[in-house]
């Protein structure tokens, strides 16, 4: 089975902008001037999958999602 590409998405209705995700995954997430994460829609690099998973797990609002792209 070929591995599906994944990407990060934010459920903006749930995100409270506390920045926990950016702390754990600074390579892919920075915060805007209001404290909300800026996530680009590109496929997730395989090397960062583990970090991405822990950032997703660390989001207190379940707002950060890993989705098949």
């Amino acid at each position, binding site marked *: 089975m070929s591995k599906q590409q994944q990407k990060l998405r934010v*459920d*903006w*209705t749930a*995100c409270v*902008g506390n920045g926990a995700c950016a702390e754990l995954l600074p390579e892919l997430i920075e915060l805007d*001037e209001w404290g*909300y994460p800026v996530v680009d*829609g590109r496929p997730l690099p395989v090397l960062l999958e583990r970090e991405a998973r822990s950032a997703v797990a660390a989001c207190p609002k379940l707002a950060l999602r890993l989705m098949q792209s």
Partner: protein
Amino acid sequence: MRVSTAMPRATTLPRLLPEDGNPESIRAHLARHGRIPYRGNTGVLIRDLEQSGLAGRGGASFPAHRKFASVLENAAKRRVAPVIVANGAEGEPASSKDAALLGLAPHLVLDGIQLAAETLGADRAYLYTHSVKLGDHVRQALAQRHEDLVAVEVVVAPPRFLAGQETALVSHLNGGPAVPTFSPPRPGERGVSGLPTLVQNVETLGHLALIARYGPQWFREVGIPDGSGSLLSTVRRPDGRARVFEVPFGLPLRDLLGDPTWIGAVLLGGYHGTWIHTDQALRLRLDNDSLSAVGASVGAGIVVALPVDACGLIETARSVRYLALESAGQCGPCLNGLPRISAALTDLARCRAGRRTLGDLQRWSGLVAGRGVCHHPDGTVRFVRSALETFAGEVERHMRGQCGATRREPFLPVPSDVARAEEDWV
């Protein structure tokens, strides 16, 4: 609002709207189009939709047959009956075409709902409208019908800009507030009561009812290959009156605009749309192929001609203030960005902008676009950016403290009593 159906060039139109401009009873409807042409649950209609090239008339121009096919597939996989929703929310203040269609030819839309229900095997259907009066009108039409397969429930949506966005509509029909939700799942996967749900603009369903009767070839006799059939267009000329025309795709915009002498600029697609210069507009046609050259699209068919004596920046700032107040306020970037964009535009329009205002506007626009669960911020930013480009000369003058407009009364329609109480969402 006045509805005009007689257009030059379009010899075979109107198709959707009754020729005499009077609301059609079931008898008038049957006399014009005959009985509802049930096709059996065989997929014939989906093939006809594909060959007709029918695209959604609610704004996104998505091919109707693809939405039908995916709802059918999702329902088959789960062995459930899907739900049909006719979207007549028409939250956009500059549009009146769905109200015109429901007012004048409700039975065509209701036929479209029945045919969609038959084809997809649906056993529930809704008609979602923005006004109590129209809702009553459609209920009266329903009471006149005797050949319907499924009952249609009329639901009156809150009069909000976002209420017709498809996930907001689903949320409302599920008993929640009419605000957008994160997707996936999209309504076609999990919508009303968690069932696969077909959400289609009321005009799209009206065209479908005609395609089922007269066939895809007939449908394509009007329009162009890339934009088949006719569309309902809400046109507002400098006199300020909204008129609904049924026009062929590919119609030169100059035929809709009237005398260009009195036009300062043209807005295509409403408050999520695009401002363009009048001389550009006069060279373009009303189809996505032609309009893509200036970054615009047909959208829901709104065409506005701004009077020469009005200020495009003042008009845009007023509409953007309305759009910012209509944000559901759920998504951080939209909640923070739209009010700031609105305030900066207002400063610019009132000749009170500072050195940083334009830079702020550009930066905030970049920060809200694409960062909400619905396209409200994206559409708002398209409107704002096109205003700054099209009215670049005005922007410069305003930065020097001058506004050349002589007209004081507002032109673009903005609901004055913007309701903002929490309970208005339900």
